[in-house]
């Protein structure tokens, strides 16, 4: 057997099979669509034709039976029904099995397909179809006659594979396939390794270009400058072009999924519809290979555990068909893939129980976790909550393996879930070999790169202004940035490269960056230059360090780490988990801070203040997350319910609330309450002057702070009052 020809055949036939899967699925929904039937017939016919050349007897035989059946269908002798549909899918699987065998050892394998062939023949009988019951005898005879004729012709033709078998229909086929092959002439098959080495050379070229640009920057040779500019232009264009050669639309992965979803849903006794969008989004070929399995697993999980049975769905008022949405889009240097189902959502209680049972977390740790954090435990190794571990989603290696597969290509995965409504998995994958614009900076003598797409602004302030505009709340530092409090991250401190966080220069440089958790200011020592850098992934041992998303080689051959702003942004979250500690720390210092007040506006531009030592955090909540617990307005906050008190209403001058709520979270003896205010004004260290005691409940009195009349909030009273109001 000619191995080159065989290889070609395998590649093309596999593509045909994938197409067939799709077509069969469509056919199920449009059983009498003539174009579909013709298209399917052509595909099988092509496979069967080449089989003759390559002497693939088994394959030819089953393809032939399938072809007959399809011919009957497209001629309208009878219609598609459930049994035929199943048989056709079986046919595709059988062909796939043989192709797999051929790929492995050049043989058709030892499996016996006679049962399948019998089934296909039996189905190719108009008298068994329910719609045939109405036909009269003459038509039945006619059909029988046609069928026998077709079989005879086929049997004859089977002996001489090189002959064209059915004259009239095939002419049309030939013209069609000619048209198709013209389209095929416009594309090439290229060895992946060749493209890989081209791509490597291109990135080396980019580095060389950067070097040359750097050297010639300071020279003033006219012709050299022009030549360098030309080199720059051409390099960029080559870079773009070569990267494009490896990019493929994600639908190349997705086209197999509808079939899988159908099979799994059937096996689970559920009904699921798969909706896709963004299938034209392009990904590098290696990435496409890497996400196939994770996506498959996620979908299987979703169908098996997420989507409820039709009865449960009906009981919950949902539509009988479960919906899974598969979306892809490009965001900056990433491709974002989202899998959303409208099933039952994650069972946080069960996850909690399993995690404790498997000793993945301690009781103490889990009591501090928010629901989201508990849900994320499904990614921990050795975790599986399936009561009955099914064949479908496997045992306890699931989401952990999914996450490491995705992380191995430099991506990340996260999930969110609403009980009863559904689950959403979000996968972010960097475009490999991305060449991204970045800002080079220096901190503690080391060079780092900040991706431009995360950078909003650069701010430089003198030390005096910096100290004036920085406030400390809890254990966090904030910078008063155009009226908003922006959390600060000191890069040197976070990376432990310089223990103090006092700025060294006379000027403080802040990079205002946008992370998933929000905007924050990154304090660095020095800004260097804007540059296009080649992103090189970190080795697997370093991938788990959340502060870096990769590394790059600079013009002088040195290495700069690329900062991951999302990882750095998590610093802001984690310090607040030490709330308990910071509360103690503050009460120790309460002597010196007794005259530090936080000033806010509440209820129609009135000013209120309370001692800073009572303040844990400043938060913002959307109006939508407010809920009622009995008579008390609350919001879900870090795993507990935070009672909210509207300061404005205490002052009897409440404003109508729209949009986001600014809330000051105060603590007293480990209890928390949220005070709803209008906005934050300032933090002052003053001795309050001219106090007038008494007033409404919850107010200590009035004083003058910053030259204005300010009501001082009685925090203790609020806590006591709050408890009484809700009847505890």
């Amino acid at each position, binding site marked *: 057997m000619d191995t080159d020809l065989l290889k070609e055949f395998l590649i093309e036939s596999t593509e045909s099979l994938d197409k067939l899967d799709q077509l069969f699925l469509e056919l199920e929904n449009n059983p009498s669509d003539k174009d579909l039937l013709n298209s399917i017939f052509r595909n099988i016919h092509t496979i069967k034709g080449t089989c003759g050349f390559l002497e693939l007897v088994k394959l030819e035989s089953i393809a032939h039976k399938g072809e007959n059946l399809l011919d009957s269908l497209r001629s309208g002798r009878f219609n598609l029904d459930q049994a035929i549909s199943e048989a056709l899918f079986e046919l595709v699987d059988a062909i796939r099995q043989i192709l797999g065998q051929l790929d492995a050892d050049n043989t058709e394998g030892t499996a016996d397909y006679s049962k399948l062939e019998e089934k296909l023949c039996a189905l190719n009988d108009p008298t068994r179809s329910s719609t045939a019951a109405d036909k009269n005898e003459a038509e039945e005879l006619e059909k029988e006659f046609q069928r026998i004729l077709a079989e005879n012709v086929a049997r004859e033709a089977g002996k001489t594979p090189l002959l064209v078998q059915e004259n009239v229909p095939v002419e049309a086929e030939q013209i069609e396939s000619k048209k198709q092959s013209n389209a095929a002439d416009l594309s090439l098959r290229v060895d992946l390794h060749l493209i890989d080495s081209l791509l490597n050379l291109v990135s080396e070229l980019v580095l060389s270009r950067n070097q040359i640009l750097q050297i010639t920057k300071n020279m003033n040779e006219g012709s050299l400058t022009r030549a360098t500019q030309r080199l720059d232009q051409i390099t960029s264009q080559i870079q773009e072009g070569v990267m494009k050669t490896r990019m493929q639309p994600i639908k190349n992965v997705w086209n197999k999924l509808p079939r899988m979803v159908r099979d799994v849903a059937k096996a689970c006794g559920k009904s699921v519809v798969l909706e896709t969008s963004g299938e034209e989004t392009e990904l590098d070929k290696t990435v496409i290979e890497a996400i196939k399995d994770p996506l498959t697993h996620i979908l299987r999980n979703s169908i098996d555990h997420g989507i409820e049975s039709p009865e449960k769905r009906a009981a919950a008022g949902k539509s009988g068909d479960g919906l899974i949405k598969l979306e892809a889009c490009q965001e900056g240097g990433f491709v974002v893939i989202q899998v959303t189902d409208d099933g039952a959502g994650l069972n946080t209680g069960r996850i909690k129980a399993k995690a404790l049972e498997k000793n993945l977390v301690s009781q103490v740790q889990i009591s501090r976790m928010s629901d989201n954090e508990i849900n994320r435990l499904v990614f921990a190794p050795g975790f599986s909550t399936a009561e009955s571990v099914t064949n479908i989603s496997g045992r306890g290696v699931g989401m952990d393996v999914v996450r490491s597969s995705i992380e191995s290509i430099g991506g990340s995965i996260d999930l969110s879930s609403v009980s009863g409504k559904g689950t959403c998995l979000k996968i972010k994958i960097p475009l490999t070999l991305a060449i991204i614009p970045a800002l080079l900076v220096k901190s503690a003598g080391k060079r780092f790169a900040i991706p431009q797409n995360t950078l909003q602004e650069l701010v430089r302030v003198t030390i005096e202004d910096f100290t004036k505009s920085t406030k400390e709340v809890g254990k966090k530092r904030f910078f008063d940035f155009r009226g908003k409090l922006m959390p600060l991250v000191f890069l040197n401190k976070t990376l432990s490269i310089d223990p103090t966080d006092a700025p060294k220069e006379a000027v403080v440089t802040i990079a205002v960056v946008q992370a998933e958790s929000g905007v924050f200011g990154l304090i660095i020592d020095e800004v260097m230059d804007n540059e296009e850098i080649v992103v090189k992934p970190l080795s697997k*041992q370093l991938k788990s360090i959340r502060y870096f998303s990769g590394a790059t080689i600079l013009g002088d051959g040195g290495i700069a*780490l690329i900062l991951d702003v999302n990882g750095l942004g998590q610093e802001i979250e984690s310090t607040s988990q030490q709330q308990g500690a910071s509360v103690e720390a503050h009460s120790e210092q309460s002597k010196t801070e007794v005259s530090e007040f936080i000033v806010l506006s509440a209820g129609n531009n009135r000013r209120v203040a309370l001692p800073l030592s009572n303040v844990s955090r400043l938060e913002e909540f959307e109006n939508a997350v407010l809920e009622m617990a009995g008579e008390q307005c609350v919001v879900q906050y870090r795993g507990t319910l935070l009672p909210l008190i509207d300061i404005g209403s205490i002052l009897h001058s409440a404003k109508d609330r729209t949009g986001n709520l600014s809330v000051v979270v105060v603590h007293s003896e480990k209890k928390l309450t949220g005070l709803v205010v209008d906005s934050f004004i300032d933090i002052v260290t003053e001795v309050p002057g001219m106090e007038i005691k008494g007033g409404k409940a919850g107010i200590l009195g009035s004083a003058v702070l910053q030259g204005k009349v300010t009501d001082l909030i009685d925090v203790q009273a609020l806590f006591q009052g709050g408890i009484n109001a809700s009847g505890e």
Partner: protein
Amino acid sequence: MPAENSFEENLTQHVSFRMGREEFTINVGDVQEILNSASLSQVPTSSKTIRGLINLRGQIIPAIDLSERLQYEGTISEQPMIVVVRDGEEIAALLVDEVGDVLSVDPSNYESLPPTLSAVLSKCSKRIIRSQSKVMLELDVKAILDFDGRDNA
């Protein structure tokens, strides 16, 4: 020994190197190249096992302090020699004190690992080999590269 030459087809080649006072080996197939020196770029918040990153002709690879990795007594010198190893697509640089000769070893001189080996050494070694009247560990590159480089201190 002359007898070894007649089994040339079966001989395996090993790169030998010294850490402290002991010698170790790695199969030649796992070694890409040897470097006399390289400039290291440190990675903040990484463990001591990773001394930094090296730019190897455009590829950024980790420089692994082998004595830290194997929890071996003593430290690698400040001017280490570098054994660049490969496991499939992954490449890394192992820092050692000194690289020695390439040894040819007949499989009859293989021995299994003694049970007295530390857990880390056990995991990162394939077998013991005898050569030129010395007894040395043959290290397993795949196992050596399998660790988390974060500093958990």
